[in-house]
């Protein structure tokens, strides 16, 4: 656990601000307790990879951070602002959670692009309607972002006519369009054919390199080791082990993590 604090690299001279803090997060579905008290802090610019077996609670944890799942109890602080929660864990102030959500862009396993809108319309939707950005400005920015993820020229195409990899890259462009303070990736490559995984990982790698704050739930161990500066291993709703990737992957301490790493190869 204390390796978490040692993870902060020294090459950053000024103190970095905290982006996301999760304290003692619990989540139950009925009688099934999926998260049993998780603590996690990501500073700005951190790339935190969350790994774990199926059912370990890693996706649930990510979805609790933007309240797509209602936590059962705990504390969530985004950019220094604590999310007001009722006793049952639901957000006490809908306006607050909506405002905070605009700063946390999520990329889903199933892309979840709006199928009745073209790629350009998907990317400008939130800037124009939620953030009230002038439409011409939003369109210009959307074109840049689509070009950046390698989808220049596909602006007027509907998602259904694109490959999974292209859709996921468009979803990343949609996420970037809100200029998020942190990005939440929920297994972004798990629904992709193997030959399409690489193109999505390349985009995410670029984002990590430019210092974006990211929480990344993934099964791609090699990729996690490469881009993350902090790795969290979840086991049955608890953080079993965490630390810098070199240590978590190179010198795992717990038996379960060793077993997990050998099973995923």
């Amino acid at each position, binding site marked *: 656990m204390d390796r978490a604090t040692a993870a902060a690299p020294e090459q950053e001279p000024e103190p970095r601000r905290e982006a996301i803090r999760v304290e003692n997060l619990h989540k139950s579905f009925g009688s099934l307790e999926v998260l049993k008290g998780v603590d996690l802090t990501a500073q700005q610019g951190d790339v935190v990879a969350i790994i774990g077996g199926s059912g370990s609670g890693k996706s649930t944890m990510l979805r609790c951070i*933007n309240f*797509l799942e209602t936590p059962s109890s705990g504390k969530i602080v985004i950019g220094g602002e604590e999310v007001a929660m009722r006793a049952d864990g639901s957000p006490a102030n809908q306006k607050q959670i909506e405002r905070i*959500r605009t700063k946390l862009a*999520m990329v*889903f396993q199933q892309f979840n*692009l*709006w*199928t009745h809108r073209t790629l350009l319309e998907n990317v400008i939707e939130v800037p124009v309607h*939620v953030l009230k950005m002038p439409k011409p400005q939003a369109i210009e920015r959307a074109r840049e972002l689509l070009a950046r993820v390698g989808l220049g020229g596909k602006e007027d195409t509907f998602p259904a006519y694109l490959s999974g990899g292209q859709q996921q890259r468009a979803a990343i462009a949609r996420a970037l369009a809100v200029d998020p303070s942190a990005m939440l990736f929920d297994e972004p490559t798990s629904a992709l054919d193997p030959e399409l995984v690489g193109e999505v990982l390349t985009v995410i790698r670029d984002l990590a390199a430019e210092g974006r704050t990211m929480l990344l739930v993934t099964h791609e161990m090699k990729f996690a080791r490469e881009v993350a500066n902090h790795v969290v291993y979840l086991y049955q709703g608890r953080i079993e082990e965490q630390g810098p990737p070199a240590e978590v992957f190179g010198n795992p301490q717990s038996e379960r993590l060793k077993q997990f790493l050998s099973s995923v190869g």
Partner: protein
Amino acid sequence: MTGLLEILGLGASAELLSLSGWGGNLLRGLANSLQIAFGAFGLGLVIGLFGAYGKLYGGKVTRDLLAIYTTVIRAVPELVLILILYYVGSDIINQISEAMGGGRVEINGVAAGIWVLGVVQGAYATEVLRGAIQAVPTGQIEAAKSYGMPAIMIMRRVTIPAMMSFAVPGLANLWLIATKDTALLAVVGFNELTLETRQAASSTRAYFTFFLAAGFLYLMVTLCSGAVFARIEKWARRGQPSLKEGSA
């Protein structure tokens, strides 16, 4: 043209159906029918949208009330409902008017027709739209939520456009039913197409001519509606590849 009609022995029919003859009455009846069908369909859509959202997201009381509404309306024959709603509705309005010191109110036929058929349409539309909303993949709505959209915006920008492709075939059915249910308003003496036809037919004894003409008018309405709904459906399905292979 006239010569051809004479040869076919239809000269008399053509004269009866001319606009200066009974034909004008039939067209006025059709206009009334369409007006009511439009109004009732529109009212039904509004009721249906609230009904569908109420059934899906409402509290227990809301859901129970809506269940009673859709069950009763869909269980009782339209003709009976029209008689009940029309007479109950006009009775209530008159009682209110008299209680407030006014006299008896002349019920506007078009308004009454729209209200009566709209309530009927609303029950069916509730179920059509409820099914369509449920067919929208949850990921579409989750994505909207995760980007901070408020509930009303999600409904307007995501749920309703995404459910349209599921709703349009059912709504097209409802529209056609609305056009033909207007004929039932003849029983309360409203001058729609069927009543006009009956009056024309009994005045002239040319039953065959007039009912055939009315049937033709209803058929035209259906054919035009079909063309319009085909376009609406194409628009609602934008972004979805065709199921037919080879055509994009």
